[in-house]
């Protein structure tokens, strides 16, 4: 009984290798996956970061102005 279980396991393992090995090799041979950023994404990234930086300057100045009026800068 135990012997037949072992034989079955080996059979499954060999079958799995037979199926998976060619798949793995095909993956090796093909080019690595690529996902190029499209134009809208690049625009969001570049314009967004410039706008974010500009907004940071404005926010800092606004906070400073409010604190300065309250005498809370230091």
């Amino acid at each position: 009984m135990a012997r037949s279980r072992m034989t079955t396991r080996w059979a499954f393992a060999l079958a799995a290798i037979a199926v998976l090995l060619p798949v793995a090799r095909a993956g090796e041979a093909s080019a690595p996956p690529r996902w190029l950023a499209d134009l809208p994404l690049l625009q969001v990234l570049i314009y967004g970061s410039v706008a974010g930086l500009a907004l940071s300057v404005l926010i800092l100045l606004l906070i400073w102005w409010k604190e300065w009026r309250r005498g809370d800068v230091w």
Partner: protein
Amino acid sequence: MVISPTLAVQPFLAPGIAWALVVIFSVLWIALGVSWGRRGSGDADDYMLAGRNIGLALSTATLMASWVTGNTTLLAPEFGYRNGLWGMFSYALAGLGLVLFAPLALRIKTLMPKGRTSGDFIRLRYGRAAWWVFMVITAIYTLGFLMTQAMGAGILLEALSGFDYRLGMVVVIGVSTIYTLYGGMRAVVGTDFIQSLLIMGLLVLVAVLALQQFPVPELHRALVEEHPERLNLLLPAGLLIAWNSALFSMGEVFHNNIWWSRVFSSRASVVFSSFVLGGLAWMTVPLVTGSIGLVALAQSVDLPQVNMLFPVVASQLLGAGGAALVFVVVFASLTSTLDSLLASTADLVAEDVVFKLLNPNLSDAQLRQATRLVVLGLGLLTLLLSWPRLDSLASVLFFTGALVASTIWPVAYGLYWPSANRWAAIAAMVSGSAVGLAAYVLIAPYCAALLSAAVSAVVMGVGTQLQPERFNWLTLKEG
């Protein structure tokens, strides 16, 4: 407009204009620094921590200005140029260090209302042995950081304006040391506010002008045709580099007294917000400067040195005005980082070594005087160490990623877990540093911080589970 792909060997700025800019800004920083330094109560706390009452605007700005180094304006474009979008993302993720430190900063402020330095925390929380390990790590990192900024100053001013390397270095270190010496933390924080506004405002101006000359659709088309790999978002190595960068920055922020001194200097009500705002605002800087790298790549600009990309593109797109803007941005970045390093390291040495270790009987006035002497000594030491020009020092600084990443978990656990074990903290810092350095040499530089932080976390966690301590949080109040 197409940038002419010529080899730029001449300085970007006429020496006369460069000298005028240096004199104007040097006089401005020194005058403002000295004037702000006279405002306070005159005691040691005022000199070292600006009176512990800084508001949100100055606190956010000083974090921004200190974190924008010469590298942020010159190395980030190189990252964009060499590694495309992932290069920009990985540099920008360094801002996570500040954002993630925000809750810890609030906790520090609550636990240590009288604290002065990061060394105070380690000594009170884990004892003197852990303090020694921590101080060795912080000394190596800080000296490396000081030297790279000083050498960077000499090299950059030489490339931008034709100044002699040593002259440029002496000017930047000299100006930063003088106003820090006379004005202490008030001078540093006050000038940082103006410097951060200058850096951010001028970067926006350069970016807008550059993108008007070379719009994003044109940039995208050129990159798809010539360098599509720079737009590839599926790069496993990119992800690894990005998270290594984030962990390196966490290590830098979590351990270094630059950031701890900002926590102690700020009002409790603004600490959390300033770290979040400062980190988020900072993240936009490498993305903007990295975009300039993409523009250079799309235009096939021939570069004499790839780290000179930002000034080359700015001067070719915008003429002499662009070169002058870059010069001011770089000068402000260097002085704002150097002043912070000088002030916070002087606080650490004076408080932890001179006062707590060598002479606990120092009076308040003597402590203030000792801090001033350390500022002066550090300025001179930086000058001395940076006198021989070493162009490869930046790679040495990257070694420190392995060291500083090992301090993340001892600091974080120590702030939240009363059971965090002191010997586990020491073992975590030592083993994390050793494994990180081995990974740097044997695997790749971008694995160093990752492995160091991972090993340190496991050692800290396992050591604490095996032998938990019962720490009394009130012990930290005395710090």
